[in-house]
């Protein structure tokens, strides 16, 4: 079992890497371009059929096993591989007439390798290697369009990604030192020191779009091409989540400080997302903000797990379900933007509309959808919280759901396929992968192991009402907003720009003129030609004067009277010394 399984593991990570390297060889390039989606297939097969507990060790790399598939890994691998497969497939069509497809696919495949690597990592170095690779490669994706907005977004994304990586590495080192081993499984025996906890929280918080560290997300995701933003929002954002799950000692120790930070940050992110998201005009930015709020909700789940270690096993399944649901739904929505813009015929428009509506509803947590399932999972465990928090959460979570519904309405309003759209892009290759993803969103969540037990409670009437009233309330708010829209035509997004805090930071840096806007001026250097050897006097003026003084003094020494006098003085000096010593 072991060598077949380890082969599968190696293939899952190796396939995209091998294809990325093949891209460099000009002869193989066109073959790879066509086969990009296949790169994710081994990972998907592994996720679906792979034996749990299989591990692969690369002897020349390190003695102990490097890759391993465990329960959590399987779930993450599942939705991640689906997303990468669909995006790859979608990208083939989307980038048909792009200027630099090879460069995009190179970064796409490298990011995929990194993602799978970190999910399957068994030891800290491999995890960090995957994390780093994914971070940098995804930056390439953000930069891909190359216009000013993409460059700005890319730079911020890169800066934050690097900061995150560095914090994580330092935190991991603390863990490894405390734990005495680099195997993730055995890491938690030692107690996690305060600085390590802080570092890991902040590091993964950046990736997962934690409250104050999220401002790169609304800039980066929209700037990237659609398939890239789908993967960014869907799969890569979850890496932060996976990091927390793997490295924070959830379920082993009560972490009051960490728990409360997660709870408050999560709730803050949820409401901030709604507030700013609604004001946006670009649909992808709206989706980005919705990701922030969704991740906020997941963070609350983690917070509960940190506060009540005994609640963690249950919470874990709820979090996993929620993560899968959000990944697939968000992916579907992002991919839907393309076909929605390009829908010509009425039939296409209806299909696009339905395609968008279903994931939106799921996301909003409409009953009988994966969203509802995920939300009930979360709500069911609120009981574990100390009473004050339980009460607050009971109210705030539905409100958050309402906020999400509001954002979904806004998104649908912006992307609803209107008649008479004349877009040049023929979304020929986009429909199929998108629809496949929509179907996966609807069906996928139910396949998860723990999901089915939750189903029976779902059907009771009060549960249905619980899921429904936030939806209605959100819809009412949306209608109110649309109505107000007619009087108040100002563009809200100017006063609430995308990337809110990021803009503030940029202005601050500009004032300190640390952050030089990208200058493209080309200075013509004077080359290393023969600049005339103008002989500036080698000495600075002060030294020159000292030279003058010395020469005159020397000349005076040269005169006979002075020399004669000095001579006799010298003889006298020696005489005196001899006499004094002798007597």
């Amino acid at each position, binding site marked *: 079992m072991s060598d077949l399984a380890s082969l599968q593991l190696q293939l899952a990570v190796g396939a995209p890497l091998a294809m990325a390297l093949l891209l460099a060889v000009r002869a193989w390039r066109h073959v790879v371009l066509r086969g990009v989606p296949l790169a994710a297939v081994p990972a998907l097969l592994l996720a679906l059929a792979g034996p749990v507990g299989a591990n692969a060790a690369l002897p020349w790399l390190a003695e102990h096993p490097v890759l391993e598939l465990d329960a959590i890994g399987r779930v993450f691998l599942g939705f991640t591989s689906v997303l990468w497969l669909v995006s790859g497939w979608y990208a083939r069509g989307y980038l048909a007439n792009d200027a630099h497809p090879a460069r995009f696919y190179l970064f796409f495949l490298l990011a995929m390798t990194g993602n799978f690597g970190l999910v399957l990592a068994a030891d800290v170095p491999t995890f960090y290697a995957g994390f*780093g690779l994914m971070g940098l490669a995804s930056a390439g994706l953000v930069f891909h369009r*190359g216009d000013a907005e993409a*460059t700005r977004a890319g730079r911020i994304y890169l*800066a934050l990604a*690097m900061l995150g990586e*560095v914090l994580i*590495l330092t935190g991991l*080192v*603390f863990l490894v030192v405390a734990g005495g081993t680099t195997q993730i499984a055995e890491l938690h025996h030692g107690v996690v020191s305060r600085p390590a906890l802080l570092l890991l929280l902040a590091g993964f918080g950046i990736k997962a779009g934690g409250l104050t560290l999220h401002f790169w997300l609304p800039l980066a995701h929209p700037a990237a091409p659609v398939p890239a933003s789908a993967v960014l929002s869907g799969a890569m954002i979850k890496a932060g989540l996976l990091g927390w799950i793997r490295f924070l000692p959830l379920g082993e120790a009560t972490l009051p400080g960490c728990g409360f930070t997660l709870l408050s940050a999560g709730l803050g992110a949820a409401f901030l997302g709604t507030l700013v998201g609604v004001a946006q005009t670009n649909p992808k930015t709206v989706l980005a903000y919705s990701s922030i709020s969704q991740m906020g909700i997941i963070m609350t789940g983690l917070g509960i797990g940190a506060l009540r270690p005994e609640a963690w096993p249950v919470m874990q399944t709820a979090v996993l379900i929620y993560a899968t649901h959000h990944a697939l739904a968000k992916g579907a929505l992002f991919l839907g933007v393309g076909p929605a813009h390009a829908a010509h015929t009425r039939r296409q428009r209806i299909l696009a509309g339905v395609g968008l509506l279903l994931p939106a509803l799921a996301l909003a947590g409409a009953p009988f959808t994966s969203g509802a399932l995920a939300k009930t999972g979360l709500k069911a465990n609120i009981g574990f919280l100390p009473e004050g928090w339980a009460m607050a959460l009971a109210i705030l979570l539905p409100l958050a759901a309402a906020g999400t519904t509001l954002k979904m309405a806004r998104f649908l309003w912006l992307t609803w396929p209107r008649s008479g759209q004349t877009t040049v892009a023929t979304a020929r290759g986009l429909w199929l992968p998108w629809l496949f993803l929509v179907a996966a969103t609807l069906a996928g969540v139910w396949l998860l192991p723990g999901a089915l037990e939750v189903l029976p409670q779902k059907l009771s009437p009060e549960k249905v009402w619980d899921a429904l009233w936030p939806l209605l309330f959100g819809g009412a708010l949306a209608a109110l907003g649309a109505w107000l829209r007619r009087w108040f035509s100002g563009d809200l997004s100017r006063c609430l720009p995308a990337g809110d805090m990021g803009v503030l930071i940029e202005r601050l840096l500009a004032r300190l003129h640390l952050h030089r806007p990208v200058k493209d001026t080309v200075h013509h*250097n004077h080359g290393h030609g023969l600049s005339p050897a103008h002989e500036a006097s080698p000495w600075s003026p002060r030294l020159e004067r000292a030279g003058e003084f010395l020469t005159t003094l020397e000349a005076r020494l040269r005169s006979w009277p002075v020399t004669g006098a000095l001579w006799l003085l010298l003889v006298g000096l020696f005489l005196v010394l001899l006499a004094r010593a002798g007597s």
Partner: protein
Amino acid sequence: MSIHALTLLGILFSSFLTGLVIFFLKEESHRLRTWLNMLGAGLKLVLVAALLWGVHEGKDYSWSFEFLPGLQLALGADANSVLFVTLSTVLWFWTTLYAVGYLEDSPHRSRFFGFFSLCVTATTGIALSANLITFLIFYELLTVSTYPLVVHRGTPDALRGGRIYLTYTLIGGTVLLLAVAWFSRLAGPVAFKERGVIEALMATHRGELQLLFFLFVLGIGVKAAIVPLHGWLPKAMVAPAPVSSLLHAVAVVKAGAFGIVRIVYDLYGVENAAKLGLLPPLAVAASVTIIYGSVRAVFQDELKKRLAYSTVSQVSYIVLGTAILGPLATIGGLVHLVHQGIMKITLFFGAGNYAETLGIHRVSEMNGVGRRMPLTTAAFTVAALGMIGVPPLAGYVSKWYLKKGAITAGDEWVALVLAGSSLLNAAYFLPILYRAWFLAPPKTWPREHPFGKWETHWMLLAAPLVTAALVVWAGVFAESSFSPLAWVKLIAAREYGP
């Protein structure tokens, strides 16, 4: 004169003799000169390989010659020196190849390659020196042999750079001379020994030893470009690319770092140094350098100046490694000695290629250079990512061990410093990569040299690619039995005992 002594002398004289012969070659005899260069480098490589294998088998290599009553010129090959000599020999081979290609039609090449070989002789001398006085002798020889290289072009600013370089290094040399004289007065003629030679003196001469350590660090710090003393490094960037790569990756700066390693491990012994309370200030100095170097690098528009400041900070990683008690940090420091060498030399080869082929010297001119010279830029990218510490490249390995060592030794702030500096590394390397790959190239390059089939002269291309491969090999195969990391673990084991 056993075979072992002959190997040592062979290593030293293979470059020295070729250097002398080249000095007197006429300018036009290109072929002979190139042949001689390559022969010298090749011979040295073979001998070093033999040495490496010998030391691995535990054979003892030593040679000594008493040139003054009570003063010995002694060469020896312990684990530390083999590490440095292997690094410098391998990189020298490729730098020579590169230099031959780079200086294709410039004047004074006999003089250049003469001093070039002298410089490497001095470096190998430093590596192989077994006692303090020999170290000092080769240390000064290095200063003298690198000066003509720095001012090779003869332009006024080259001369100014040279003058500044000399002022720093000569003053440093004088301070070192004072320290060596004083130390040998205290401890008699001093041979480098595994755990230092000052146990006896610890009790009586505490104050004096501390002052001496300060003098040593001051003297050697000039070459190791520790912050207050680093002024010459960016100024020495006026030298031609092979020289700056030699200076930065292999010879001068490494000699400085190796000097500090020698002082801390083989003269004082790291436990004694800790007992004397010498390591924290050294660690602080190194950290200040790391941060300062990186911050300055971010704002340099000239590519070579940026690389120079990055060297200032990278070398202090090694010093930081030595300044933290514990085998892990030592491993981190020493392995970075090798990794920084191969990474930095690749960067400089790249910079040299850009300057030579496209005539660009500034980062702002590097738009779309990846498209015009994909292979060089690929090598440059690998090295840059390595410097940032992206796994699985070489830089990551050394930073990993440094951080682990720092944390085990209990000074967390060092880990934060390393984190901060990796960030800053990214801050000044990633924009370059971004420009190279993502921005469109300008219509015409400032001074383009078409080199036929390949993107640039084949020699100029081969060198960076090989060193880039080395970077990847040192990183990926770090854990394997035959890699710089493995050798460094051997050193750490010997230093810290069973």
